[in-house]
């Protein structure tokens, strides 16, 4: 009896170990690095015009906070650190250090006003930081190129799956929150929330859209969104259905990004959800790019 329990425990531990620390194709992590890095870079380039007005010692956020901070005093250096960190992380140059600099910079800016965010306050840097648990610069990076040139080290085909599992846990948490917090919301039950979002000219990209004419479509959009999010924590893990669900979620986030200005978390989620897409969809294009860059066919 004890032997059977011990064997069962051993199998369970082995399964947990394999789940969190197994090896997976390196391209999964590389795809996340490129995606998160590009978004973070675009974000901080896009903010360029607003940085001084918001973050400088005499900027709006410092006024609202009532006191200056280290970040405010050195906002230019802080911004350059964040932006250079994002660019270097994307290019895979000193990948982990660059990623960490970018995350610290991002947290620093978002710490200047709890009420102020560009719609990515709790998503982007958390995902990017998680990739640093692994080796996101293992392929298609300057680091990998230097390792091959200087040390003759061949790039790995596989990396630890740990960062991907941790990102998947965050994705599940996001949809648990999004799906379950709406179950007692009358607006969602009545299928009106897409209408509400598009009616508000603070958020919609199309302020003059005559939304009453497409009420039925928006009702469907609300239910499509809610059902996808509500069942995502379960269905994303089911083979084949998971890929279909991931595509549905990506389309949903792309639709939200196309129709509203609610921030950068939509692109972050699209990149993160790539964890659930079939490997070939991620691997083939990236391997092709690597082959082109290295002169191989």
């Amino acid at each position: 009896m004890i032997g059977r329990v011990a064997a069962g425990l051993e199998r369970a531990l082995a399964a947990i170990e394999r789940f969190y620390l197994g090896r997976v194709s390196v391209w999964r992590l590389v795809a996340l690095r490129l995606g998160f890095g590009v978004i973070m870079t675009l974000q901080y380039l896009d903010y360029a015009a607003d940085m001084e007005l918001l973050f400088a010692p005499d900027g709006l956020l410092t006024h609202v906070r009532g006191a200056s901070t280290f970040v405010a005093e050195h906002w230019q250096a802080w911004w350059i650190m964040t932006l250079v960190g994002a660019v270097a992380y994307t290019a895979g140059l000193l990948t982990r250090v660059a990623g960490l600099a970018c995350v610290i910079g991002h947290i620093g800016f978002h710490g200047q006003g709890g009420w102020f965010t560009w719609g990515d306050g709790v998503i982007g840097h958390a995902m990017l930081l998680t990739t640093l648990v692994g080796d996101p610069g293992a392929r298609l990076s300057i680091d990998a190129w230097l390792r091959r040139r200087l040390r003759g080290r061949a790039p790995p085909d596989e990396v630890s799956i740990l960062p991907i599992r941790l990102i998947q846990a965050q994705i599940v948490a996001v949809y648990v929150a999004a799906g379950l917090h709406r179950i007692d919301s009358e607006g969602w039950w009545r299928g009106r929330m897409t209408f509400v979002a598009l009616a508000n000219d603070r958020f919609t990209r199309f302020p003059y859209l005559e939304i009453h004419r497409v009420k039925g479509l928006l009702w469907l959009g609300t239910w499509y969104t809610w059902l996808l999010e509500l069942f995502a924590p379960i269905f994303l893990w089911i083979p084949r259905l998971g890929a279909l669900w991931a595509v549905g979620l990506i389309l949903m986030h792309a639709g939200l990004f196309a129709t509203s200005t609610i921030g950068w978390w939509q692109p972050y989620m699209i990149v993160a959800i790539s964890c659930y897409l079939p490997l070939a969809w991620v691997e083939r294009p990236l391997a092709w790019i690597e082959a082109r860059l290295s002169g191989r066919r």
Partner: protein
Amino acid sequence: MRGEVRSEPTPTRARTWLRRTIALVALVGSLVWIYGAIPVQLRFGPMREQIPALRQRLKAALRVTPGQYVFTGDRSHDRMLHRYCMVVFGVDEAGATSRLYESYPGCRPPAVRWRASGLEVALSRIISDRLSLTLGTTRGAKRRAKMIRRFAKHRRAARVADFFCDTHGEALAEVVLAARTVSIEYATPKTQVHRDVFHRYSCRAERSAPIAGLRLIEEDGALSLAGVGGAR
């Protein structure tokens, strides 16, 4: 993804235990993270109360929370905010007003909003909780009066006004933050209600001033301010 994960080749016993410990820590961490995303009313078990505190600590330290509350939209789906325009007026010693900021030129949003500027996001966030109060219909006048009173004393709005006082030097005697909202009903596109909110701030005294008598005048959609009076 199931078929693509491979095990570590022939690890030693010590390494196996180390790896299993890490994996267990990751499992427990993931479960706590996901549990923390469940709404508190649906939560169960001994950590029901501890999770919100953990969430707050995480948010304070890393600005990360397990999951996020996204767009639950409980209160405003019959009548909702449709248009809003915020204008920051500067008032000089002679009582003449100038526009220091406007959500959109002439309060007309563009056909396509490609991006929201940082200032726009910041200013709209400052009054967003007040804007939602403009949507009530049943207790209309009473609710509106209460909302306007609150915004008139809003500490964050006062600091925003102070920002505009500082950025425009000695020229300004007062700054008035004004917003006009237009709501729309789900049932019909015809019903719209205008609400105005104000915050008045004295650059000289560095404190909020009474807003009684202020009103917005609309001409071809553009807003101007009346009721600021003469020299003071």
